[in-house]
């Protein structure tokens, strides 16, 4: 899954450029802030399919137990979803300025003014396992 990389180059100038690994001639490694990211990988060889998911490992990272049959059942389905996302790789982005985020909404912050949530009882009541005053949670540490 991690064989491709998206390189975002954000120089000192406000003008952004998107480049892929195959055309590094325009890439001057001066003040790069770049990220490569697994889910939004940008393909250098656009057509090739993404690496098939390692379903048992995925399940493990999500703390989900799957039987071998389920693994076999889910693998093609997950591959299909990734395939759909893979279609995005075909979009020509050469003339598009990269954005840090897709949305344009800004200034969505709040003041540092305390407000007590007034229906705490309902929240507490919805906790599957509560032992006043603590919430009990499944053991997740040192599982390995």
């Amino acid at each position: 899954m991690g064989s491709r990389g998206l390189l975002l180059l954000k120089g000192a100038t406000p003008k952004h450029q998107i480049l892929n690994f195959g055309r590094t001639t325009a890439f001057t490694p001066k003040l790069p802030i770049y990220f490569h990211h697994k889910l939004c990988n940008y393909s250098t060889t656009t057509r090739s399919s993404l690496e098939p998911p390692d379903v048992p490992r995925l399940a493990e990272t999500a703390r989900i137990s799957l039987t071998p049959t389920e693994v076999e059942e889910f693998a093609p389905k997950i591959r299909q979803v990734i395939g759909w996302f893979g279609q995005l790789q075909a979009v020509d982005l050469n003339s598009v300025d990269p954005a840090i985020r897709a949305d344009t909404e800004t200034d969505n912050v709040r003041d540092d003014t305390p407000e007590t949530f007034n229906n705490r009882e309902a929240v507490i009541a919805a906790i599957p396992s509560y032992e006043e005053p603590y919430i009990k949670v499944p053991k997740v540490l040192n599982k390995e």
Partner: protein
Amino acid sequence: MASMLFRTIQTHPFLLYPTTLLRRNNAVLYCTLKSAHTQTAAQEEQQKPPQIKGSPQTRQAKTKTLDKISKDYETIIGIETHVQLSTLTKAFCSCPYNYGTQPNTSICPICMGLPGALPVLNSKVIEFAVKLGLALNCKLSLNSKFDRKQYFYPDLPKGYQISQFDIPIATGGYLDVDLPVEFGGGHRRFGVTRVDLNRAGVPLLEIVSEPDMRTGLEAAEYAAELQRLVRYLGVSNGNMQEGSLRCDVNVSIRPVGQLKFGTKVEIKNLNSFSSINRAIDFEIARQALLHSQGEDDQIVQETRLWEEGSQKTVTMRKKEGLADYRYFPEPDIPEVILMKEYVDSIQSSLPELPEMKRRRYEKMGLSMQDVLFLANDINVAQFFDATIANGADVKLAANWIMGDIAAYMKNEKLTINDIELTPEELAELIASIKSATISGKIGKEILFELMAKGGTVNGIIKEKNLVQIVDPSEIEKMVDKVLSENPKQLEQYRGGKTKLQGFFAGQVMKISKGKANPGLLNKILLEKLNAKC
């Protein structure tokens, strides 16, 4: 930027540390460093001697070992610091946050991670991050974003932390540190790679240092300076006991000359500057021992815990490869955009920072010891500044604060804000002594009364009739009285036992109730004593 800083620093140790050149044949110098009488990390070291292995002999043996190690191995230390911001509410919801409140009382659907609840960022978090970023001389990212860092932890209901991953809000800064060493006070500059906004719930800022530090003391002093900085800025209380300032330290060593970095070990559970110092020195010694026994493969990438009781680091968990946090951009939080005007207004409102304060105090002519003491605590520094703003002599003000006032605060377990004495009255007191209205001795008495009960210098002087007697005829009368009452001593004095002058002076002072001007008293006394010889 980072590598440039790194190189700059690499050239420094030999210039700044005359001791590194001397260590070969002199282990004692290192001890001097540990016992330096200054009020910073080293001071804490002094106040809290290690409970178990604290005997001077073992300390010295340890020091010798460290000296030998520093000859053969290069230590590389980096620190990751989490600063809990002193906002009134949490980072992404309006739940109030106070240390020590009952469990699960300040909760809401957002911080509980309930489905459909959307986080909204606290603007104060950004403000504090910008403040700290600027104070650390960082380059700010005018556009930054949050990411999801996915892992499981009992207190992480959503299964991910809203954090910053690849575009932190501030990068590439540095922190100037004065090492509290007696021999000249080394000055070091440590690089900071990134300051990023971190962790949902209560807002934390993570400050990652460059691996610029070489000794436990340097690391402890870096942490102490960060604490000073966040307190000066008012972005955090910096309290290590409460966990408002947490330091995780990465230590690796490599044989001198080896290019490849050694395996790094992370140390957690460091609750004080002295534990940072000692944990690192222990870890260096542990790793060096494994190296020297050819067992360097036993040094594995792991997280170790510092055990205060046994003064040791012990394995907490070994890492099987790098954790896969599967970061991706946080869809619930929009991009963080900083306007230039916003950053400029914060920049212009920054207070005088510890480093600037120290340099200013230095220029006033104060000694390094005075400078480090006064600038260590923002409240003490402000008290001092206010005192001299009221016209007090700089050195005298420093002496009073570091002497009798500090001793009183220590005995009574009070901070400078708790005592009743005001900077105005301290200035008045100093002026009254300088103008000879009162004697230094009386001044001291007034000081203690002011600290305990408040009031004004002039009020106390009037109320207790403490004005210094500067009228020569009045003093003369008292001298005559003393001389006539002690004919035997007078005879002895005139017979050559001139040491008795002190006795007479004491007697006169006594009947003047400490108010006689000492200079005048001695002058008149001597005249009278020697008059008939």
